[in-house]
């Protein structure tokens, strides 16, 4: 199988990416003028697992989970669209629940199990939701796509767990995976290319085949 899309980029190998093998880099430049007391540092060590792999990072306290993934672990599948919880591109799963990784500090995730788009599936071994997004063309530019997919995987779990939504008609009845329910629940993931109609088809496809 040829590589169909150009990925190797640099003429000088200066910045050739090999994310999987890169160890996290430490935080330079912090430590000056910080209180000596250990627990009162502006950086901390945090350990969590990402896609089943244990990671231990020394991070500036300010580092969001999103930036820890992207800038320190070089797992750039999780996207930064707004950095303010307004778009959903940074959606990851923590203990199976979807959150906006841009509004969560990495140091607050000690011991957590984090799943990112890279952990759901890779080319050749895609998650059924990823396959459905390709099949239904549930994206265009692709930038919101990892967030949409992580969110949609969680949405089906939330429906299964009978969590209500704004469009749930009867708070006492069992919630079902109707297109209307899925649309409402996916509304925290903005797609400016406007692939919504196809995304809903992809998710209902997966929901249907599961049922």
């Amino acid at each position, binding site marked *: 199988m040829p590589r169909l899309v150009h990925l190797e980029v640099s003429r000088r190998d200066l910045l050739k990416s090999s994310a999987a093998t890169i160890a996290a880099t430490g935080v330079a430049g*912090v430590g000056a003028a*910080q*209180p000596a007391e250990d*627990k*009162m*540092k*502006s950086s*901390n060590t945090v350990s969590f697992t990402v896609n089943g792999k244990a990671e231990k990072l020394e991070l*500036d*306290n*300010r580092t*969001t989970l999103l930036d820890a993934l992207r800038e320190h672990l070089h797992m750039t599948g999780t996207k930064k669209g707004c*950095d*303010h*919880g307004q778009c*959903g591109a940074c*959606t990851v799963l923590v203990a199976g*629940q*979807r*959150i*906006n990784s841009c*509004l*969560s*500090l990495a*140091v*607050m995730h*000690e011991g957590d199990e984090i799943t990112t788009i890279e952990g759901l599936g890779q080319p050749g071994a895609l998650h059924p939701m990823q396959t459905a997004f390709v099949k239904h063309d549930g994206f265009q530019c692709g930038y919101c796509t990892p967030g949409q997919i992580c*969110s949609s995987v*969680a*949405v089906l779990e*939330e429906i299964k*767990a*009978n*969590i*209500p*939504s*704004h469009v*749930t008609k009867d*708070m*006492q009845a069992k919630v079902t995976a109707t297109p209307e329910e899925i649309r*409402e*629940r996916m*509304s*925290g*993931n*903005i797609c400016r290319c406007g692939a919504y109609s196809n995304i809903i088809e992809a998710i209902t496809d997966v929901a249907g085949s599961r049922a």
Partner: protein
Amino acid sequence: MKAFTYERATSVQQAVSMAASNPDARFIAGGTNLLDLMKLQIETPLHLIDINHVGLDKIEATDDGGLRIGAMVRNTALAADEHVRRDYSVLSRALVAGASGQLRNKATTAGNLLQRTRCPYFYDTNQPCNKRQPGSGCSAFGGFSRQHAVVGTSEACIATHPSDMAIAMRALDAKVETVKGDGTRRTIPIADFHRLPGDTPHIETNLERGEFITAVTLPAPIGGKQIYRKVRDRASYAFALVSIAAVVQPDGTGRFAIGGVAHKPWRMGEADAQLKAGAREAARAALADARPTEQNRYKLDLVERTLGAALAEAKG
């Protein structure tokens, strides 16, 4: 975002004493609003106390037949709780009308009460804002104010409180339970929890420094048709232009609180008393002292019509 030190509390007592010993500390739970504001340096704590591990994540029955909602109960969990869905459905409805699934998974009960206004001038540190920088002026007044408050405002501030949850809690006469740095506990009726802007819009609640919310309690169920009607430009993931939390009894009496119109969840006893007379009477009583801007005058009409929709739904 300014650099800060960080520590994790594992009990309420520890959290409160950590705060007492550090005047520059803030508690962080879900962080969905605090971190947003810290990135813009609208909030600049030098120390964060992570309270995600203090417990307070249960919803329990109270002795008087009501519910006690732990401060750390996430919005998703609260909306999905079977007792809340059955007996306080207006609260479930309000919660799921707010934010997004991702945010509700993180946001806590206490944090939702404490979220700050979404006024765009508050968010832009180049612009004067009395809430962000006391004395600098209010940019929204005379500016882009379509989404701003119409009632209970002051010359100093026309911002709204953005919460949906708090509107339902206001209709339900919830109470906020707290513990102070010295260990004393108190219970604050939600009506007295948030403040009107007056001359001090930067002071948004009646909490004291270092005072810690432990729970929100709901009185025994009051039955009735419970309706939360949120009006917004787009269908989801937007703050309310106007919202109504209403509990309407079979005889047409009831109560309602209004969101999107004031610096706090807005409810008037006189307006509740007019509910049976109809949406027009009740809305006019609720907004009798309104001082809208040119851009948000429509909210007066919108409140009346939205209340009308809620009452029609209650009858339906």
